[in-house]
Every structure is written in structure tokens, then in C-alpha cells.
């Protein structure tokens, strides 16, 4: 039992809340007809950004990127926030896991 309290405490101790910088850049994506608008999003390199994603469709979508390691459900007519980066300069793909044929986008980090 003791060992597991230690495990739990160690994991718990890392759950410190992180102060959000007041000047964190914010960006928005809209999903409409299973397409990302815009399909290309430019964000600054080396900075954490706050990304708002709104699902304007009547079906659920999953915002996902294997390139920058994010995965989050966006229910119909709902918005979510995903924090991204800081990323190195480059082009990263993202997609909608539930409509991969149409929901494709690129994150351009520069």
C-alpha cells in the first residue's frame, strides 16, 4: 500500500498548475462541412499558442495531429481549446480523425 501512495503522490505532485502567459498568441479554426477553415494556419515558432477549434457541423469530429502530437474531440456546435507548442519552424499536418478524406489542414510554423 505504502509504495502505491508514494507512486500516487509523485504523480500527483507533478500536477502543478502552469501559469498561462497573458500574451499567449491565440488562433482559431472552424470545422464546416468536414473541412478546416482555414486549412492553412500560420503560427510563430518557439512560442506556445492557444488554438480555439469550433465544430460548426452537426456531427462530432476529432481534431488530431500525429506531427505535433495532439488529439481532442470537438462535439457538434462546440468549441475546444488546445495548447500547441512551442514548435520548431516547419510544416505540420493536422486532420479530423472522423473525416480524414476532407478534414485536412497544415500548420505552418515560422
Amino acid at each position, binding site marked *: *500500500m*505504502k*509504495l*502505491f501512495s*508514494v*507512486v*500516487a503522490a*509523485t*504523480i500527483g505532485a*507533478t*500536477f*502543478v*498548475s*502552469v501559469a*498561462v502567459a497573458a500574451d499567449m498568441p491565440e488562433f482559431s479554426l472552424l470545422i464546416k462541412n468536414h473541412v478546416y477553415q482555414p486549412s492553412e494556419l500560420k503560427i510563430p515558432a518557439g512560442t*506556445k499558442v492557444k488554438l480555439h477549434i469550433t465544430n460548426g457541423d*452537426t*456531427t*462530432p*469530429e*476529432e481534431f488530431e495531429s*500525429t*506531427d*505535433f*502530437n*495532439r*488529439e*481532442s*474531440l470537438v*462535439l457538434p456546435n*462546440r468549441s*475546444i*481549446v*488546445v*495548447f*500547441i*507548442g*512551442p*514548435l*520548431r519552424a516547419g510544416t505540420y499536418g493536422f486532420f479530423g*480523425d*472522423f*473525416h*480524414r*478524406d476532407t478534414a485536412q489542414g497544415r500548420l505552418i510554423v515560422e
Partner: protein
Amino acid sequence: MPAVALLVFREVLEAALIISIICAATRGVPGRAARVVGGIGLGVAGALLIALGADFIAQLASGAGQDIFNAAVLLLAVLMIGWHVIWMSSHGRELAKHMSSVGSAVKQGSSSLNLLLTVVALAVLREGSEVVLFLFGMSASGISAVQMAGGIALGICGGAALGFALYLGLLHIPINYFFTVTNIMLVLLAAGLASTAAGYLVQSDLLPALGSQIWDTARLLSDDSALGKTLSVLIGYKSAPAGIQLAFYFTTLALLIAGMLWQQRNVMPTSRSSSAAGDTLPKAQP
């Protein structure tokens, strides 16, 4: 139909690999099949509930509910796997020596095994709730029932076949090393799950990333490929991990290995086998 089959396949694959590792780790346990099937059934029921409550969960903790929920499910699985491997490290040798008389040893550890089988339910619940939401969207978009059913069947069969292949492969391991290997696999699985949990908390900014791309092998081996997904379950592979994910991975690895070694040192080879599972966990020592 291909879209349905592919998504279902990807989700089932992850759960199936986890289940096959657990099936191997519980080899020789009487009544195991019923427990695994029960775990899958509970997981499916849970997946439906989670999918129904997805909107409620998403609104919790000012929008971070989904990430916290995912992380909590994963960390719960990590704790359960951890408990089991530490218990197994003192009993694994007995199990390997007396495969035929495994029953009594297992009865004493049945609480530990039940925990492990709950991991089956959690794995199915996590992947399953996504499938349910996806299928809900698909049905709303007017796909025919035949295409839907065909896609689901194809996806489940494909994912389950790969899981079954892994299980059959594991059965070829000589019995002397068998539980050592399955224990190592469980430890790596737990470490990978802990790292995934950290990823969820980073994306809602509840944990610092501590470097968001320690390395980037997405072009070499994407997390999205079947091989990438398989390795992510087996060894916790991530193509672009955050520093905190590595910290969670190696902390879990270190804690579980330390727990197993400690338990092995404490265990009395024969006389302890009559004590209850809870008592075989490490005692507090000054």
C-alpha cells in the same frame, strides 16, 4: 465503408494489443476467459456511457474535462498494471514452476488479477467511446446500414487478428522466461500509458511540456501508422514526445522496476504463499 473500417481498425488495434498482453500475463489462470470477456463487455457498456456523456465531460473543469478524464483513465490503468506486476514479481516464479497447480496461488492474488482485467475494460472504454461518437456521426451522414455493419465487422476483425497474432507469438516464449517477459511488457505498456496521459494534460496546459519536441521522427515512423500504433502500445513509442512525457515514462519505469526488485527481495520463497495478496505488498520499513 473503408473510412468506417479504417477508424474502427485503428481503435480496436490499440485495445486488442493491450488485451493480448494481458491475456498472456494471465496465462494459466482459471476462469480467465470469462473475466476478459466480462472486461470487454464492461468496456463496451462504459464506452456507450462515456459517448453519451461526452458533452458533459467536455464542459467540466472549464473545458479541460476531456483531457483530465482521459489522463485519469490512463493513470488508473497504470496504477492497476503497476500493482499487478509488483505482486507478480514475487509470485511469477511459483506460477511458472507449478503451471498445473496455479489455481491456489492465483486465488490469493485474485484481487490483483481483477485489477489487471479492469485494465481490459478501461482500454475498451477509452477506444470504444471514440468509435461510438464516430459511428454516431457516420449514421447521421446517411451511410447505409450494410456499409456501416461491414465496416465495423472488417475493422474489428482486422484489429482483433493482429492482437491475436501477438498473443500467439507470446505463447512461444519458453515457460521459464514467460512471466518475466509478460511483466516487462506490462511495465513498458504502463510507462507508455503514463506518457500518453501526460500528453493529454499538456494539451490543455495543465502540465508544462518541458520541451514540446524532444525528438521528431514523424516522417520516419508516424504515430498514425499501424507499426507506429503497435509500437506505441508495446513500448510507448511517440514520434514527437514532450519532455514531460519522457519524465512520466521513465518515472513509471523506474518506480515499477524498483517496486518489483524490492518485492523480490522481501519475499520468502515458500512460506509467504499462504498470505493474502494485500499482505504481499511491500511493508513500510523505517
